[in-house]
C-alpha cells in the first residue's frame, strides 16, 4: 500500500507546483470577448497606397506542457503600393480553423480592452516576422484604429533587415 501512496502524493505535489507556474489551467479554454470588436475588415488608404486587414477570432491550442486553449485574433492582409499589389494573404482568410502552421499573417491577443498586441506580423516580401505590432481602436470612434509596427526587441543575426514592406504607422477604418 505504501508503494502506491508515495508516488501518488509525489505526483499531486508536482502537479500542484506546475499549476502555480502555468498562466492557464491545463485542459482549460480561456475566452476573450474583448477581441470581438476587432473582428471584420479594416482599410487604410493614402493616395494610391492601400492596406486591407481581415480579422477573425479563433481558438488556439497550446501544446504540452501547457495544454490549454485560448482565444486569439487571427488576421490576413494585403498591401497595394502605387496601385500595384505588393503582397497579400487575404486569399487564405478564414479558410480553416486555427492552426499554428496556418497561412495567417497576423496573430495577436488583447493587451487591453481596445488594444491588441500582435506577437506575429509576417512581412511576406521580406520574409521576416515581427512580434511588435499594436492595433488600437479609438474609444471615441470605434470604427477607427491605429496601427503601430516596430521590429521585435532583441539580438539578431548580422544580416537582419530592419526595414518593412508596409508602412509603420497607419490609421485604419472599419469596412
Amino acid at each position, binding site marked *: 500500500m505504501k508503494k502506491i501512496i508515495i508516488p501518488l502524493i509525489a505526483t499531486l505535489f508536482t502537479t500542484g*507546483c*506546475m*499549476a*502555480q*507556474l*502555468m*498562466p*492557464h489551467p491545463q485542459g482549460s479554454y480561456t475566452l476573450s470577448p474583448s477581441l470581438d470588436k476587432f473582428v471584420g475588415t479594416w482599410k487604410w488608404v493614402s493616395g494610391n497606397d492601400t492596406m486591407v486587414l481581415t480579422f477573425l477570432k479563433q481558438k*488556439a491550442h*497550446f*501544446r504540452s*506542457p*501547457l495544454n490549454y486553449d*485560448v482565444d*486569439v485574433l487571427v488576421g490576413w492582409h494585403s498591401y497595394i503600393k502605387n496601385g500595384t499589389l505588393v503582397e497579400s494573404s487575404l486569399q487564405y482568410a478564414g479558410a480553416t480553423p486555427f492552426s*499554428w*502552421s496556418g497561412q495567417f499573417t497576423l*496573430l*495577436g*491577443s488583447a*493587451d487591453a480592452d481596445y488594444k491588441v*498586441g500582435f*506577437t*506575429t506580423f509576417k512581412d511576406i516580401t521580406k520574409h521576416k*516576422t515581427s*512580434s*511588435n505590432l499594436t492595433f488600437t481602436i479609438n474609444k471615441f470612434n470605434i470604427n477607427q484604429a491605429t496601427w503601430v509596427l*516596430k*521590429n*521585435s*526587441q*532583441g*539580438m*539578431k*543575426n*548580422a*544580416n*537582419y533587415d*530592419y526595414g518593412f514592406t508596409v508602412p509603420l504607422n497607419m490609421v485604419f477604418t472599419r469596412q
Partner: protein
Amino acid sequence: MNKFRTYNFYICLLVTCLVYLNSSCKKNDLYNSSVKQQTVSKNLEKEFFKIPAKTSPTVQRIITRIAEQNNQYHFVNDVANREGLPVWNKARIQLPGKSTITSGFQHGNSANQANGGEDTLVFVPLVLQNTMFVNAFLACAVGDSVNIRLIHAGDYAQYGFNNIPDSINADRVALQTMLLEMDVFGHDEYELLDSRLFNHVQDGITYHPQFCKIGSSTTTVTPSLMVQVTSCTQMTISGGWLTGCPPGVNCNNVVTYTVCDTYFFFIDENIGGGGGGYGYPWWIPGGAGSPPNGGGGGGSGTIAWVYVPPVLTPCQVVDSLMNIPDYKIFLDDFKSKTADHHETAIVMLDPLINPITYDTTTGPENDLGVNYNPPIPVNGVLHNHYNSPDRLTIFSLDDLVKVYLMLTDHEIINAKTFTLGLVTDSSSYILMIDSTQFKQFGDTWFSDSISLIEANNIYFKNYNIAAGNSAALNEYNFLKLVTSLNMGIKLFRGNSTLTQFTPIRIKDDGLSVETATNCVFIAP
C-alpha cells in the same frame, strides 16, 4: 604664413586620421582575428619590441640582441606574423645553478661553455595575435653573450618521441609550451590529440594519456650553451585523466604520473648556417646542420594539445566575472549607455580573462535591436536595452533565440561557461545555460517559424512579459516561464551598483522569486 597654416592643417588631418585608425583597430580586435590574420601580413615589428614596464634586465638584453640581429637580417616581422608576438613579461627566467654539465651536445662557443654555470636560461612565449595559446617560444641563454633558439610548438614531433636524456624530445617541447601557456593564459589542463605524447609505463602497463594537467613544477638549471635542465613537473591528475577520463567526470581509475627528468637545451646562434625555411639567424629544427632530423622548413606543424577549460559551476563563473575589472567597466558603461537611443552589445572572446578581447556593435537608432555574428566562437555577450518606453527589463525572446542560434551554429566556445549579460535602466541580469536542456528547449520552440510563432505568443501573452511591466513582475514571469518549460536557463540578478549578481529562481510555491541557494535553479 598661409603655407604654414595649410601645412599645419594637413599635419593635423593626418594625425586625426591616424588616431581614428588606431581607435578603430582597437574596437575591432575580435573581428580582425580570424579573417585577416591568415591573409594579411601585418607589420608587427613595433609590437614585437614593445617592452612592458618592469621588464627584467635579462629579458631586456635578449630584446636588444634580437634588435641587433634584426638590423642585419630583417626577420622579426616574419617571426611575429608566423610564430607570434613575444609576451616579454611572462618569460620564464631560470637563474644559474651550481651544477656542472655532465653531458650534452658538443657544439657551440667553447669559451662560453667553459664558463659553465654563469648563464641564465630564459623561455619567452610567442603568441599569435588574437589567439589564446602559445604557438612557439624562444629559448635563450643569457651570459657573456645572448644566444637564442626558436622552438615552434607544432614541430614537437620533429624532436622525436625518444627518451634520450641529453636531447630535447617531443614531450619536453610540449611540456615547456604548456608551462608557458599556463603563465600567459592560466591554462593548466589540456586534451592531448597525439597519443604518442607523455606515454607512461606503470606496473607494466603503457598509458596513452588523453588529458593532462600541469601541476607544480620545480626546475633547476645548469646553464651554458648546453643548458642542463632538471625539471620535475607533476602531470598527475585526479580523476584518472591519464586513462582517458575527461575533466569533470568522476573517474576512479587514478594514475599518478610525475615527469621528472634531466635534459639539455642546446642554445646557439646560427653557427651551422641557415635557419630552416625562414632564414632567421636562430637555429630552428630543420635548419642546416641542426639536429635532430634536418631538412624541412620548420614552423609548419600543428599543436597537438588543446586547453580544456576548468569545469566551473555557474555561480563560480559569475563570481569570477565579478573579479574581472574589464567586465565591471563594461557593465557601468552599458548602464550609462541606456540613455542612448540605440542598443549596444559586445561579444567577448573569453570574459573570464582580463583584459577582455572583445568587439562592440550598436543597433540602429530608435530601434530595440542589435545584430551581430561573431566571426569566431566567443564565450560572452553583454548588451543593453536602452531607455525606450517599449524596452523590456528582462531578456527578450529574440535574445534567447539568438543564444540558441549561437549554440547550434557553434559560435559559443564553451556553453558551460558562456554568459549573456543584460543591462537596462532599472535591472541587470546575467544568464547562463545548460547546453543540453537549453538546446532541447530551443529545438522544440525555436527551430522552425511555426514553433516560433507559438513561442512568441507564450512569451509575450501567456506569460505577460511586457514593456509596461515593472522589472520585478517581468523577472517573476520570466522565471515562471523558465521553470514551467524547463528551459535550461540560469538567471543571476545584479545589484544596483552592478558589483554582485545573485542566482535567482522561482520559489517552491510558485508565488515569488528567491535566491537559488547552492546554485540550484529549478524549484524541486
